[in-house]
């Protein structure tokens, strides 16, 4: 249950404006990759092209290829909906569905698509997803309560459980801890470390220490100036990026001289 991603010559446009330029990157299966860079450098924009979520914004287009184990996400005839059921996403602010219970939130990916599964299978899926998100012990007695009644950190783990329940190949995370307190952040980072045994994880973060703690490989994005497109500057093992980067801009960023 995990695939590799190969991106070649990817350019992202908002109408006529080029937001991200010429990205080439290979992400290994069953690994955690971090995207870092200063605000506005296009790392979230690029992340969203990996599951075709950028198309939700009118006028956003893409040139280039994104291959999921060899299948191009952007081929003609590929439905974005299919892509998104294989590549899941966790967002910056926890967003459980307010009208649904915890149980229904976890099953949302299934229920909203009206796929029938027997109740016992559903219960198993809820338990395994919540265990996979390290949330089972805290909520197993109140699965029927609303999802919005949990704390911020718990809500985010609920969103992760919801994403896992669909059994994706890849999980994309867009600054998942930036709205959380330090204790919850730690819980989620532990979770990410476990998740890489089963999934390919890509995480965008503006917290460099987090990237250093959590990821196997790190990609540094930068932007030349406002109005210019963002670019991938350097991509390597995390240890190398932080201790021994090849490009000066990378070194400046990780040592805090800008950003």
């Amino acid at each position, binding site marked *: 249950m995990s695939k590799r991603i190969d991106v070649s010559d990817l350019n992202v446009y908002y109408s006529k404006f080029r937001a991200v330029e010429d990205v080439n990157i290979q992400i290994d299966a069953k690994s955690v990759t971090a995207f870092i860079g200063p605000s506005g450098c296009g790392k979230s924009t690029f992340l969203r092209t990996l*599951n075709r*979520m950028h198309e*939700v914004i*009118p006028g956003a287009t893409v040139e280039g290829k994104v291959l999921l184990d060899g299948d191009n996400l952007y081929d003609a005839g590929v439905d974005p*909906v*299919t*892509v*998104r*059921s*294989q590549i*899941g*996403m966790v*967002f910056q*602010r926890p*967003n459980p*569905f*307010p*009208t649904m219970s915890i149980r229904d939130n976890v099953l*949302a*990916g299934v*229920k*909203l*698509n*009206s796929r029938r599964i027997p109740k016992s299978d559903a219960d198993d899926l809820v338990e395994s997803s919540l265990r996979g998100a390290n949330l089972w012990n805290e909520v197993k007695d109140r699965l029927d*309560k*609303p999802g*919005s*009644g949990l704390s911020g950190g718990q809500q985010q783990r609920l*969103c992760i459980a*919801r*994403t896992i329940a*669909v059994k994706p190949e890849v999980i994309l995370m867009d600054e998942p801890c930036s709205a959380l307190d330090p204790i919850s952040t730690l819980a989620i980072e532990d979770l990410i470390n476990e998740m890489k045994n089963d999934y390919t994880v890509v995480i965008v973060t503006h917290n460099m220490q987090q990237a250093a703690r959590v990821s196997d490989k790190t990609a540094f994005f930068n932007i030349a100036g406002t109005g210019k497109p963002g670019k991938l500057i350097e991509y390597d093992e995390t240890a190398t990026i932080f201790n021994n980067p090849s490009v000066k801009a990378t070194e400046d960023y990780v040592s805090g001289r800008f950003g």
Partner: protein
Amino acid sequence: MTTTTTTRATGPLRTPPPARRNRLSKGRLPRWAIPAVGLAALILGAAASTLGGFSIASFLIYAALLFVAGATTTTTVVEGRRQGTNSFFKYLVVGAFLLALIPLVSVLYTVLERGLPGMTPHFLFHSMNGLTGAVDNETVAAGTPVLGGAYHAVVGTLLITLCSTVISVPIGMLAAIYLVEYGQGKALSRGITFFVDVMTGIPSIVAGLFAAALFGLLFGPSTRMGIVAAVALSVLMIPTVVRSTEEMLKIVPNELREASYALGVRKWRTITKVVIPTAISGIASGVTLAIARVIGETAPILVTAGLANSINFNVFGNWMATLPTFIYYQILNPTSPTNIDPSAQRAWAAALLLIVMVMLLNLGARLIARIFAPKTGR
């Protein structure tokens, strides 16, 4: 270096220094001044009113004018012109509020006073079938309870309003969904939004004429049926439903939609299973308010459904009465021209019934909004 703190407890008892008037409060009116002016105004107003033959209205008018004049002058003299102007406008503003309350209280009181006597079970469950002027004349002569009721009007009101709700809600909600979910930024959306706003201003009688003209062209002139009235009311309801649904849909955070897309859910399922359930309480209360608005409409019904005296359950056949038209005709064309009191009583009772229905709907709208709002139980 001053010596300070320890004196109080150890020194001999001292009398406190003589109280000095706070300099910041110089030139202010004492607190009893304005009420005193008010009292004087009441007395003088009563006197002035009695001069020309006492009446409550003239008493209140004189008293109010005297109070405003007196209080403003007093304030100006003691505190200065700016404060005087400030007080003057304060009294005007309060006066405006009280003035606005007068018709409200008067209408509600009148409806209660004149309508309650007529609210009998007989009234609620009988129509005007067979009720002629002669019957009313007998009732007045013999002093027996008034006969005849508004049951047929209640039935008509409920049926016609139900039909127009069934027409308006799907169309209105779908249009609002288009505006918020599919049409952002498109020219068609801007056009629809502008004209929907304009449509909220269509006079109700014009909506009635439109429905009458439409059905007249299709089915022959003077087609008078309940369904025509329902179409007319729909023209009035749809803009309200669109606006309120649109507002409620816009409030749903975009993140919820994105979370649903990211799970691989299609757009239409996202809308029907995530967005609408989240917004449903606001939508339901908006629809209820739209119903409350049209249930009291008279003009469109007059020109489309005519008036009936007997119960008619068929919206597609013949004339139907509604509560508003029942009231209108009972007052304008009393059943018995020589004894108009029974007709008036029936009309006021129907008015009371109508107001109760409208108030219940308004209350219901607020309750719905609260009950169906997404909960955050712990």
